[in-house]
């Protein structure tokens, strides 16, 4: 029992059971999935090991960004995001920041740290977009944002890639202002030298805590020293630069004596690296949050079946179908659920479930044969993964109900698209897909997505995908994830079918076109792999199957920590509609 009794216990204390024990382990499938997970882990290690050695930083008395996060975050709660995100294909292989969700002093926060191992935490190409993703998470979940800042400013050799533009490196400062306008605090711990962009990163949060050697300034020593305006560098200019640089290295602008003792911008100054993090922990204690049991509807419970089963249940072979409800049974508390309209729209699962004792709405693509006579509007058989009329109507209803009842949602995508052809058009697929987009936007709910396997065609958008900018908090991928507009073979056929006809009509050899088609198929394959999806930002992190529930817990717990709007459990409609 938690700290309180629970409301509406006849509905939520014990829900109907879902799933059954695994009949057999499929070792080869598990091995294939784990091989991909190991490749991703290697990418993560490569990012962690890039730049200066941790030992070299430690010798200088500095902790690395990872060490700082490790010290800051409550054990076992860290859920990293964007670890291998690198949309600009930087030589550094990441965007220069490390971020994720984690608990500090028992409260969820969005946490972002400058990677001080690489160019002293410089702005790299792609970093602004990474920071915007992070500020978006804080905004959607109404969570505090914690910066562990150590930012040397722009990588000047590539300024054209990162300084300007609508979503450029200055945009996060406006986002910080926006978060504060929305009542979301930003806490920053400041280390090292933070000139220019680093200076604005330092000053834009709500509370500034500085390490004693930190500084922050409009411009760093290099700019303050200036240049003799000749338009070129000669020996005299170089000598002058050497002298100025020596001087400002010793006394960089914006030190603690200026911005703590003088302006008072820095609220606290700490003697050690750890003390800065301890101060952040203290401020986190003072931030508003509901007690963890306040919004719970039942005691938290682990699923009845082990997460390891997922390695046997989710086929690595993308063509092989599988029982989605068995996957879900490995995510839900006590493997219980209340399914919404199970006899309607069989291609999708919609249900109310508990995650760590909190209510959550789940939507997932059922897989496999849908039964005789479905879809009802057509004389052909339907198959799971595709969306048809009833499934789209059902999801529209479910999203609308969850929105009304303020229940956060998690989407599990494995979709090949929405039904096509004139019969499907007459059955209003286009309009119903767009209706679902409207329902999601209208719900104003935070949502999380898992691209379990395929994220394809417009279905990837309408199923709570990351394109739902005002709803989707983050999107996870797995070792089985593939994201593309359509399968490579379909795309090759769509692109070259007419060319083949033309070649054939003109009695030309088909081989050159066939070759191009096969190149295209391979290109689609290479550019839809899990690592590629994470690097490009199609997903926010590739997560081991065994850790999916951990992220669900982080998302749902974050949502209920300090929600901006609430619905009393006894005023909810969704459970009543399900019960009938």
């Amino acid at each position, binding site marked *: 029992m938690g700290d309180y009794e629970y409301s509406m216990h006849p509905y939520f204390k014990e829900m109907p059971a879902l799933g059954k024990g695994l*009949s*057999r382990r499929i070792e080869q499938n598990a091995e294939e999935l784990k091989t991909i997970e190991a490749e991703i882990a290697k990418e993560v290690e490569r990012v962690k090991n890039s730049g200066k050695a941790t030992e070299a930083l430690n010798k200088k008395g500095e902790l690395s960004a990872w060490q700082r996060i490790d010290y800051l975050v409550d054990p076992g709660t860290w859920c990293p995001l964007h670890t291998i995100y690198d949309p600009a294909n930087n030589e550094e292989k990441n965007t220069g920041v490390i971020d994720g969700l984690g608990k500090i002093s028992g409260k969820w926060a969005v946490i972002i740290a400058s990677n001080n191992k690489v160019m002293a935490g410089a702005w790299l190409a792609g970093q602004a977009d990474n920071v915007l993703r992070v500020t978006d998470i804080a905004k959607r979940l109404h969570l505090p944002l914690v910066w562990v800042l150590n930012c040397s400013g722009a990588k000047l050799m590539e300024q054209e890639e990162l300084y300007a533009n609508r979503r450029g490196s200055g945009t996060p400062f406006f986002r910080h202002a926006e978060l504060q306008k929305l009542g979301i605090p930003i806490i920053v711990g400041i280390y090292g030298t933070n000139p220019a962009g680093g200076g604005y990163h330092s000053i834009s949060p709500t509370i500034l805590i500085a390490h004693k050697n930190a500084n922050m300034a409009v411009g760093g020593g290099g700019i303050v020293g200036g240049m003799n305006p000749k338009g070129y560098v000669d020996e005299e200019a170089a000598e002058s630069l050497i002298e100025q640089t020596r001087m400002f290295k010793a006394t960089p602008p914006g030190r603690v004596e200026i911005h703590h003792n003088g302006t008072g911008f820095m609220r606290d100054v700490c003697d050690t690296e750890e003390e800065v993090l301890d101060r952040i922990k203290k401020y986190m204690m003072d931030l508003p949050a509901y007690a963890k049991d306040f919004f719970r509807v039942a005691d938290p419970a682990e699923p009845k079946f082990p997460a390891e089963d997922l390695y046997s249940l989710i086929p690595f*072979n993308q*063509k*092989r*179908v599988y029982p989605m409800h068995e996957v879900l049974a490995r995510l839900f508390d006590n493997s219980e659920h209340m399914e919404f309209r199970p006899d309607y729209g069989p291609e999708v699962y919609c249900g109310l479930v508990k995650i760590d004792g909190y209510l959550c709405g789940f939507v997932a693509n059922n897989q*496999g*044969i849908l*039964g*005789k006579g479905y879809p009802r509007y057509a004389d052909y*058989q339907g*198959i799971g*993964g595709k969306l048809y009329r009833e499934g789209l109507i059902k999801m529209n209803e479910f999203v609308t109900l969850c929105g009304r009842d303020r229940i956060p949602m998690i989407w599990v995508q494995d979709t*090949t698209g929405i039904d096509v052809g004139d019969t499907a058009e007459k059955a209003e697929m286009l309009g119903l897909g767009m209706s679902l987009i409207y329902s999601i936007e209208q719900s104003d709910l935070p949502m999380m997505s898992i691209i379990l396997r395929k994220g394809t065609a417009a279905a990837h958008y309408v199923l709570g995908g990351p394109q739902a900018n005002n709803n989707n908090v983050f999107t996870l991928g797995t070792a089985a994830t593939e994201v593309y507009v359509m*399968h490579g073979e379909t795309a090759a056929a769509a692109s070259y079918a007419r060319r083949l006809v033309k070649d054939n009509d003109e009695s030309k050899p088909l081989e050159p076109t066939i070759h191009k088609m096969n190149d295209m198929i391979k290109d689609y394959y290479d550019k839809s792999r899990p690592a590629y999806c994470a690097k490009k930002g199609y997903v926010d992190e590739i997560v081991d199957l065994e850790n999916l529930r951990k992220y669900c817990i982080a998302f749902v717990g974050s949502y209920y920590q300090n929600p901006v709007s609430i619905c009393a459990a006894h005023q909810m409609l969704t459970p009543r509609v399900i019960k009938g």
Partner: protein
Amino acid sequence: MANLDSPIAGKILEVYIKVGQQITEDDELFIIEAMKMENPVYGDAGTVKEVNVKVGDRVQEGDTLAIIE
């Protein structure tokens, strides 16, 4: 005796059973390739009395794939 009918039209990709074999309801008996997907076919627990299809056969929805006792 129960007929195990094909739930969908398609091509037999795998046959995992033989006459006389004991099966459970969790056993995959056939894989039918249909609509670009590989669909496992399950049956009731029992003993396989007849197997009416082989790999590569095309089947229609409702065709009897096997008889289980």
